[in-house]
């Protein structure tokens, strides 16, 4: 068993990057990501981490530097939030299409305007279709663990895709949690140095990033889709291997008291722990409520999700982002799409909550479940609302 240490989650994330023996780090500061890169620069400055560290002039360049370094075969890392992610978004699509296994932590924060430094998921939802593997962490341990999981998976020759670890800004990034550290020898065994299939090097010249004319473009997209969908077994395998090493087994959709529940709340990220507390309170009152936490956002775990929720009468999906002018929150859209083909399926009620750092407490989750159950009872089967709007 590794050492358990009380530590700010951002610092633990940076320590994981160090333990992962990252070669190149390139980032630009933005709240609430700053503590991660500050700590990494400290580690490099103190000689505790042998990496090239660049505090570049923009997030666009931060990811571009990683694209360049990763293409030479160097394990590369970046980290951002909100506006920074929006600025680098162009390159997120390119990094994945070029099949460069970069790992990025996003300390999730609302997108402007109005400018807000606080948490929601609108930043990452803006690049939903960028073709990266995307995880949502529930707590600090998840963030720490997934740095190793993400690199091993991303660099797998059968995967070769970049990966995003979503870490809720402040609610995760800035809290102190007990983190169980993994011994370095174990990590070195779990995550050996990156061996690229192709790299930019004069000994074996390759051209990367050419232009695709219409007769070939569709095929490149199909290949990317096959790769991302096809990464699912590898994801499960990697989680299994990680669990065997640490005793911490992860699942694409994790449930809490959902097996027999009539109503299941569906969430992503740090909502998980608060929502679990709400489930306990409702269970004490004898209510049949459970929780499903989507840990893997891309590739979307359709089968696992159905398995976890299909038996319920209703799902209360609580999104932390809004698709303005659209059908509600992005998670609810996905959930509805996942269930649409099922002859018998639960009714989906959607709340958008916790935008721009608005606190969502256990009692808020209970209120949302109350409201959804009443609405559905009254025949509202397409419910969608923004929760807690002050009028």
């Amino acid at each position, binding site marked *: 068993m590794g050492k358990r240490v009380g530590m700010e989650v951002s610092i633990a994330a940076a320590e994981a990057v160090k333990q992962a023996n990252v070669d190149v780090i390139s980032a630009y500061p933005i709240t609430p990501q700053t503590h991660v890169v500050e700590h990494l620069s400290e580690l490099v400055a103190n000689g505790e981490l042998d990496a090239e560290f660049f505090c570049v002039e923009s997030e666009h360049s931060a990811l571009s530097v990683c694209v360049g370094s990763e293409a030479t075969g160097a394990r590369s890392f970046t980290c951002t939030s909100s506006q920074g992610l929006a600025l680098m978004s162009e390159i997120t699509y390119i990094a994945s299409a070029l099949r460069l296994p970069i790992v990025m932590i996003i300390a999730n924060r609302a997108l402007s305007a109005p400018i807000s430094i606080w948490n929601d998921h609108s930043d990452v939802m803006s690049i939903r279709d960028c073709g990266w593997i995307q995880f949502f962490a529930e707590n600090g341990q998840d963030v720490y663990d997934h740095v190793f999981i993400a690199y091993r998976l991303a660099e797998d020759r059968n995967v070769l895709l970049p990966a995003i670890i979503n870490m809720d800004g402040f609610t995760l990034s800035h809290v102190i949690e007990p983190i169980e550290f993994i011994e370095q020898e174990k990590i070195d065994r779990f995550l050996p140095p990156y061996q690229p299939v192709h790299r930019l090097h004069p000994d074996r010249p390759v051209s990367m990033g*050419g232009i695709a004319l219409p007769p070939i473009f569709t095929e490149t997209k199909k290949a990317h889709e096959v790769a991302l969908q096809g990464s699912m077994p590898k994801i499960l395998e990697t989680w299994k291997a990680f669990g065997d090493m640490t005793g911490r087994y992860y699942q694409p959709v994790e449930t809490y008291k959902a097996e027999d529940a009539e109503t299941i709340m569906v969430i992503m990220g740090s909502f998980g722990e608060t929502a679990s507390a709400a489930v306990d309170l409702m269970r004490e009152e004898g209510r049949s409520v459970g929780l499903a936490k989507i840990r893997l956002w891309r590739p979307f775990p359709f089968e696992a999700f159905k398995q976890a929720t299909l038996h319920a009468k209703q799902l209360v999906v609580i999104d932390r982002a809004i698709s303005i002018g659209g059908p509600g929150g992005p998670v609810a859209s996905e959930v509805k799409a996942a269930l649409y083909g099922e002859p018998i399926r639960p009714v989906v009620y959607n709340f958008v909550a916790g935008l721009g750092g608005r606190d969502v407490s256990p009692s808020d989750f209970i209120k949302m479940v109350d409201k959804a159950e009443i609405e559905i009872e009254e025949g509202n089967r397409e419910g969608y609302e923004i929760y807690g709007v002050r009028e």
Partner: protein
Amino acid sequence: MTEKLNVFAVRTLTQKEYFAPGHRACQGCAEALAVRLVAKALGRNVIIASATGCMEVVSSPIPFTAWRVPWFHVAFENAAAVASGIESGLKVLMRKGRLPRKKIVTIALAGDGGTADIGLQALSGALERGHDFIYICTDNEAYMNTGIQRSSSTPFGASTTTSPAGKVKMGQITWKKNMPAIAAAHNIPYVATACPSYPIDLVEKVKKAASIEGPAYLHILSVCPTGWRSAPELSIKLGRLAVETGIFPLYEVEHGKYHLSIDFPRLRPIKEYIRLQGRFRHLTEEMIGQIEERVRKEYAELKEKAAKGVAR
């Protein structure tokens, strides 16, 4: 004398082609010629990061490539950042013993749009960070790849599709941005201008840039017959005229010291250059006079800097 030497000495260049024939550049494209010469000068041990633009498009239609050296295209505005990453990746992998140590030159290659406009920030960042790389701007004085739109490197008076000569405006109304001066202001060890009409000079400068540690910036005037509305067979001549009229002087800035590569006691009238290009067709005598005056003034300033041996 220099002219004769240039014509003759070209034959001494390597016969090897690293930017292979068969690419899809237009006839008479001096940008492709510049790239070909750059590649010859650099040889095998190089990695090139190209920005989006003509040279990327003409050289890389999947599954073909004109590149016999490692080549990478990522986006339009980030060639300098991508090159920064390549240089750093090689450096750290060699330090950690995961790649054998050897000298590999990292190149960022971009057009004037990818350099003076949308890529200026990434370029400035990379120069300031001091990466060991060469940034090469092939300047054809507009966004040619997308159909001859103006850039900040388009010369005053030139008609482009977004600075058209119309009834009230006479083409580009701003003066060409001085990119070499901007690069030099970053206090980097080496800045130079070049033109493929002077191939030996160009090759020597590329080699010098490659031998210097730290960032180097090369600004290469590249005649584009398609965008300049000039005859393809005149590309070499136009490059020479650009230099001989003082419109595009060839010089180096080494550790802040200016040095003219070729000096002309008397500059040719700019009309000789301007009259061969459709993009300037609409210019009045008055405007040509205005341009000439500015060219002379800037040339004199440059000479003064070179004479003093000091910079900026």
